[in-house]
């Protein structure tokens, strides 16, 4: 209907202020030489930085998110199990791996394990080494010896450390998602003769995705930057580490950090676009991604959605 819309002066003031701030920031970007944009761009294109971006940051993020999500879903399901032992294990896992800082975990994986146990003797039972020592035997109760130092600085090892840590966070996210799916869905699947695991995979999880995706997006974007902790493995092929190396050599701290941040923003953009499409995919059949059309949602309600 033709009508004068409501004025929101407060809102427009807020928008104006934001625009002003944005203009100021842009203005300063353009005019302040200390940003040293030409140098920042050179750092972005610097071969070691690029290599670190691709071989370290991106690869490590993909790898550890794959481990984190798959293991996390398993742990999340364990936390909802009717078996108290499994439930306890799930709880203990989320407790421990959320409690230990990633930096410490990576450090433990990289140097700590080797420091504590230079050789990893896999005995036939726990305490076998100690027992042997106690009995005065030479420690022949050893099945295999792993030289921890041989593998400790590899990317794969770092990915495992980050993946284990991520799984604890993903477990909570998966748990919240699974809890949000109506029990009737599980029962309908059971009544069709689906096994619990099939029903989880085909019925519950796809519906839980709507609730799981946004926080998982958070985790992924955070992981992109947390891969910089791999420097504590130590592993130098990593975007942020290389940018910092440039900064400590040239003492041009700001443009080096800007270069790294620019790359992070590029990755974040790509991930957010991906997330948008994922949300749309898993919102099929729902009026889920409300941005699409509110009309759609309303129709669902009228047509008996949620019944």
């Amino acid at each position, binding site marked *: 209907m033709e009508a004068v819309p409501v004025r929101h002066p407060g809102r427009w003031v807020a928008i104006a202020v934001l625009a002003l701030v944005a203009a100021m920031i842009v203005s300063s970007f353009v005019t302040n030489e200390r940003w040293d944009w030409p140098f920042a761009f050179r750092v972005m294109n610097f071969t070691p930085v690029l290599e670190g971006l691709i071989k370290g940051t991106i690869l490590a993020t993909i790898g550890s998110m794959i481990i984190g999500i798959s293991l996390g879903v398993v742990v999340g399901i364990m936390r909802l199990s009717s078996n108290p032992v499994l439930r306890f294990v799930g709880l203990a896992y989320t407790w421990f791996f959320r409690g230990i800082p990633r930096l410490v975990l990576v450090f433990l994986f990289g140097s700590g394990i080797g420091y504590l146990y230079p050789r990893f003797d896999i005995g036939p039972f726990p305490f076998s080494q100690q027992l042997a020592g106690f009995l005065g035997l030479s420690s022949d109760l050893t099945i295999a010896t792993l030289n921890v130092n041989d593998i400790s600085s590899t990317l794969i090892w770092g990915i495992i450390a980050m993946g284990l840590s991520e799984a604890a966070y993903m477990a909570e996210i998966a748990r919240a998602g699974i809890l949000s799916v*109506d029990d*009737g869905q599980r029962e309908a699947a059971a009544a069709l*003769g689906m096994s*619990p695991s099939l029903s989880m995979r*085909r019925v519950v999880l796809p519906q839980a995705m709507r609730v799981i995706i946004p926080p998982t997006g958070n985790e992924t974007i955070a992981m992109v930057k947390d891969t910089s902790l791999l420097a504590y493995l130590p592993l130098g092929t990593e975007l942020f580490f290389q940018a910092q190396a440039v900064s400590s050599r040239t003492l041009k701290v700001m443009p080096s950090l800007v270069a790294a941040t620019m790359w992070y923003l590029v990755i974040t953009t790509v991930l957010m676009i991906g997330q948008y499409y994922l949300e749309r995919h*898993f919102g099929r059949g729902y*009026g889920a991604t409300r941005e699409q059309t509110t009309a759609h949602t309303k129709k*669902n309600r009228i047509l008996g959605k949620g019944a």
Partner: protein
Amino acid sequence: MTSSARTMPLVHAVNVHKAFGRNEVLKGIDIDVDEGEVVCLLGPSGSGKTTFLRCINQLEDIQAGRIWVDGDLAGYTEKNGKLHRLKDKQVAAQRREIGMVFQRFNLFPHMTALENVMEAPVKVQGRKKAEVRAEALALLDTVGLSDKESAYPAQLSGGQQQRVAIARALAMKPKLMLFDEPTSALDPELVGEVLQVMRDLAAQGMTMIVVTHEMAFARDVADRVVFMDGGVVVEQGDPKTVINNPQHNRTKAFLSRLRSEHEQVAAAARDLVV
């Protein structure tokens, strides 16, 4: 077990007991349903009708008694006189023989009507997609939804959703169909569609146990009605006999309550019929 299978009715429930905590909901139910028979379960709210259906399909554990479906003891196997619980997979296999239609449809919202129907045959029975697809389309056709194959549940009316749910259950070719008040969540205008599908199913000889408040349906379609109250079977028999000449006080009380509701409708209907 299999030896007795021939002589046993399709559903053979003996002394079924079920309690939720201290609340005893089923207090020794004995019901037999022969192959091809249509049995309607009647009874006041809270009498345990839904719970009994769920026990048959092992959505609830029972505390005592046994239920055989098609000659197989539900949920257990007997070895040396001892009961052993079945594994999840074996329970799932038993459930495949039974189709269940819920009051609230419980369609999978992230799948189209066709996908809902195809899901179990393909993923549970591992059959070929093309073959299942043809069957599923035929099923959707029989429930009058041939044009809705690619609609999501949210895009269907309640009556359409319930018919998809029936097609989904039928796609597994079950020996027994359980209906739990399949029309009570539907607008009056949509009830008819679903009842018609069930009538056709009964006419084709499907064994069915139906919890319902639709007296007309019970009277016309059921071979037998079973009246439950307070967790026991109070009375059962030929629909007309039980509905018109209830023997027990509890049955009489329940029917007279329903009657007063129906009388009003009937009065209105009589006006309409003029």
